[in-house]
């Protein structure tokens, strides 16, 4: 029995939320639909832990869907690289589901809740599928599943604020353009190589150096994925979508959605194509590197001038995505590892910050802006405490997980003779202190306009406390994140680099 379970884990981790989403939609009861969602995300999380153990033993697990052998059939690949985003997605999915139990009924009509949870599971399943699949076209399918589900989820925010519709429409159109670009790229590659399996593709593209169709296909794919990953300047859909989505959805999307696409970006750059190739070297140093540096500063500066806190955090995400793509762009083993470390840590940090802010908005029943934060820190000590810890983590203060990210990122850029890059990274992270400080100052130092009494809700702050604890834990004992990221980077760019 356990044998069959273990053998089929790669597909079960996707199927578990996917199938449950079909069941949940039929259940009219709010609590029951939440419970089923919770159960399936929890099981998916357990599966991903089991997968992690399997990967430690077997290094790479290949699963042929329907027993059709690859490269003809669809292959699911779980290796030391893809396990990292799988853990991120299932962990965050599980925590945000706990978090959502109080938030959803507050923002969504009773009748639509089970539909929302169905979409919720569909989005999670899409994201997991995205990172497990080893097939370029199947990837497109999952990309669309997760995107469309996310668009619908964002649109549900319209029950509270009509702006959500504009946000969702933007997200839909830009997301569709991205997906289309990606699928055109896949088509071109399929035309010249005759395969859709990524491992197979990587072997065949070697012989096709300087082929114009190959270069065009590569370009389409990369740009398509960069739209999905919100790499500057293709990020314009992101701030609105995060800001107007329902609370729990903002948390889920902010922590996971772009991470999966960033993983795909790394996979295409380093695994399908070869890092030693001129095409990749040029793309990294002339396209991704400058864009990342601009993203770092543009996102931070936009965040400094933003008054709406959810949008502020979304702008900050754009900057943080810049750090991750910058790490990829440097293109050494150490830097790619740093990118994965930050991918993991940033999911925890941003998830926690969005949780804290959306809980505040739940307590005060208003959109959270800088001006109505004033003096709330004393009224909600637990939420405030978590918010401060995670802000410090985002700023990269020692003994938090954010510091570990910064440390490895800086080390990698200095080892690659990029002292100036290191200084730029630190400069932009020093700038990020400005907007974080503005929020903390408002929460703590300013006097409240009128006396506010708030009772913090345990179901809301439990998951916030867990995720805050993880932020500190991975700052004190980073070996799990660091070791698995280094192994992932070794797999992607080779041991020697």
């Amino acid at each position: 029995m356990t044998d069959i379970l273990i053998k089929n884990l790669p597909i079960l981790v996707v199927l578990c939320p996917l199938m449950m989403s079909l069941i949940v939609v039929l259940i009219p009861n709010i609590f029951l639909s939440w419970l089923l969602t919770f159960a399936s995300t929890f099981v998916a999380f357990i599966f991903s832990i089991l997968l992690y153990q399997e990967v430690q033993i077997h290094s790479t697990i290949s699963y042929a869907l329907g027993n059709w052998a690859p490269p003809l059939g669809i292959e699911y690949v779980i290796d030391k690289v893809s396990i990292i985003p799988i853990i991120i997605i299932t962990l965050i999915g599980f925590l945000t589901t706990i978090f959502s139990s109080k938030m959803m009924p507050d923002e969504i009509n009773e009748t639509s809740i089970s539909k929302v949870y169905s979409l919720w599971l569909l989005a999670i399943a899409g994201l997991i599928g995205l990172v497990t699949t080893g097939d370029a076209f199947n990837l497109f399918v999952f990309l669309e599943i997760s995107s469309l589900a996310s668009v619908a989820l964002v649109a549900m925010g319209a029950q509270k604020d009509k702006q959500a519709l504009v946000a969702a429409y933007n997200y839909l159109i830009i997301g569709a353009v991205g997906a289309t670009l990606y699928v055109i790229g896949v088509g071109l590659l399929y035309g010249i190589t005759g395969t859709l399996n990524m491992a197979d593709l990587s072997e065949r593209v070697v012989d096709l150096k300087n082929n114009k169709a190959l270069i065009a296909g590569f370009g389409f794919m990369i740009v398509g994925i960069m739209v999905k990953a919100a790499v500057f300047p293709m990020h314009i859909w992101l701030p609105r979508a995060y800001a107007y989505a329902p609370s729990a959805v903002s948390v889920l999307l902010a922590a996971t959605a772009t991470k999966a696409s960033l993983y795909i970006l790394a996979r295409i750059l380093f695994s399908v194509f070869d890092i030693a190739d001129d095409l990749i070297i040029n793309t990294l140093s002339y396209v991704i590197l400058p864009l990342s540096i601009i993203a770092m500063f543009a996102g931070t500066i936009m965040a400094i001038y933003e008054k709406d806190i959810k949008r502020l955090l979304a702008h900050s995400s754009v900057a943080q995505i810049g750090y991750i793509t910058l790490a990829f762009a440097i293109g050494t083993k150490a830097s790619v590892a740093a990118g994965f470390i930050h991918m993991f840590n940033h999911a925890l940090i941003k998830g926690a910050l969005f949780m804290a802010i959306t809980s505040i908005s739940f307590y005060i029943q208003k959109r959270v802006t800088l001006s109505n934060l004033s003096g709330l820190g004393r009224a909600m000590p637990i939420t405030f405490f978590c918010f401060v810890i995670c802000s410090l983590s985002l700023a990269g203060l020692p003994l938090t997980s954010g510091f570990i990210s910064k440390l490895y990122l800086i080390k990698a850029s200095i080892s690659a003779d990029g002292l100036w890059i290191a200084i730029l990274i630190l400069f932009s992270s020093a700038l990020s202190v400005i907007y974080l400080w503005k929020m903390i100052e408002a929460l703590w130092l300013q006097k409240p306009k009128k006396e506010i009494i708030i009772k913090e809700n345990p179901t809301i702050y439990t998951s916030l406390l867990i995720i805050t604890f993880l932020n500190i834990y991975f700052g004190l004992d980073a070996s799990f994140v660091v070791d698995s990221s280094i192994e992932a980077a070794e797999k992607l760019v080779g041991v020697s680099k």
Partner: protein
Amino acid sequence: MISFENLILITLLSPLLVCLCTPLLSSRPILRDILGPLGGIISSWGAIQLMASILNGEQPRLELLQIAEGISISFVVSPLGAIFGLVASVLWIFAAIYSIGYMRGNKEKNQTRFYIFYAMAVHAALCIAYAGDLLTLFIFYEVLTFSTYPLVTHKQNEMAQKAGRLYMSILVGTSVILLLPAIIWVWVVTGSLEMSQNGVLDGNMNPEYAPYLLAMFVFGIGKAALMPIHKWLPAAMVAPTPVSALLHAVAVVKAGVFTMLLILTNVFGIDFLSKTGASNWLVWLASFTLLTTSIIAIYKDDIKARLAYSTISQLSYITLGGALASSMATQGATLHIITHAAGKITLFFVAGAIYVGAKMSKISELNGHGKSMPLIFLAFFVGSLSIIGVPPMGGSWSKFFLMLGAAESGYITVIAVFCISTILNAYYLMEIPARAFFFKKEREVKIKIPILITMPTLITCFLTILLFFFIEPFENLTSIMVSKL
């Protein structure tokens, strides 16, 4: 016999325990206030034991936590660290007693919060003193900055908040943008975060880059207050006087110059510096800061502002001593950490005593008050003599060694700089007792100085004299520090 690990833990944890227990006793002010001096006595005892073990040729170390491969929080007691640890913990006893007198005499608000962060800052300073690797050093360097912020902004008025912003932006900004990448640069070049007594860079780094790396360290260590990043120190004077006395004359600024000396000796290494000449520019920058701030000090009428600029100038002595890259100068710089700490804390204690006792903070108001506060002004006089470097005060030793060091490394101009600055020191410091004792009193002021303020002031004043006669163990430590392995 207590093992070295436990000894380090006792020394480091007693201020942390004070910090954690203070809020529990907030309703019992007497017990709460006793915690500080008590913690000081315990951790000084530990620091003395650790110093003795160094003199016996041992090297206490403690690995606390492994964060990831190659990154850990560890503590090693080096001769330099033993000295700084001793200075910080011993002076904490007196500063803690003094702050009871000051905070009560001045009826300050939020005393519990004040004591919590005061102890926290001492804890961070001790962790810096015993830091075993560069990352531990950096972490506690930041903890020190953050724990002193609530102390600087203690008054919570507009001016304090403005000063607090300047304080944080300079100290955090420089450390994050320059110190951190410099540390990681060393990590990349040498492959580890460890330091060693004779430096780790020799043979690992292209000497051409050494001055740039040094510049990143020098401007990254904002706490050493070299020009042009010295502005935070005068700004921090809005804090209550016990903070200025212990933290901004001893713990924080000494943590800065301690880090600077540690980097110069244990990362670069004296030999590497003198061979490559990487620190030549630093000699001139430090000399410039030394003279300029002495001149600025003359024009400050506020006692604490004058003392702040005097501190910046004295800190440059220490940086200069390290930059001269000779063993004699390094010894002098290290001794100056002790002697200046004892002298300057006395001067700040006096400034606070005058403020609490007579509500005066301007030098021009002091005319003729020497007779009504004789002991206080006598303490100021003795402390000043030590800073100026007149025997029989401790300060004469460090200046003597520094001048010898300058001669040893062939910087004759630097000897002249020391002489000119001595004259300037005498000029701006002696004005205060001179006004008090020889000028005519302009108005009568009712004076009431609590015994808890007078006593620690006289003790630290006495320490400056004691240091002249009992400098030997410290000198032995410094000679261990500069010896070759």
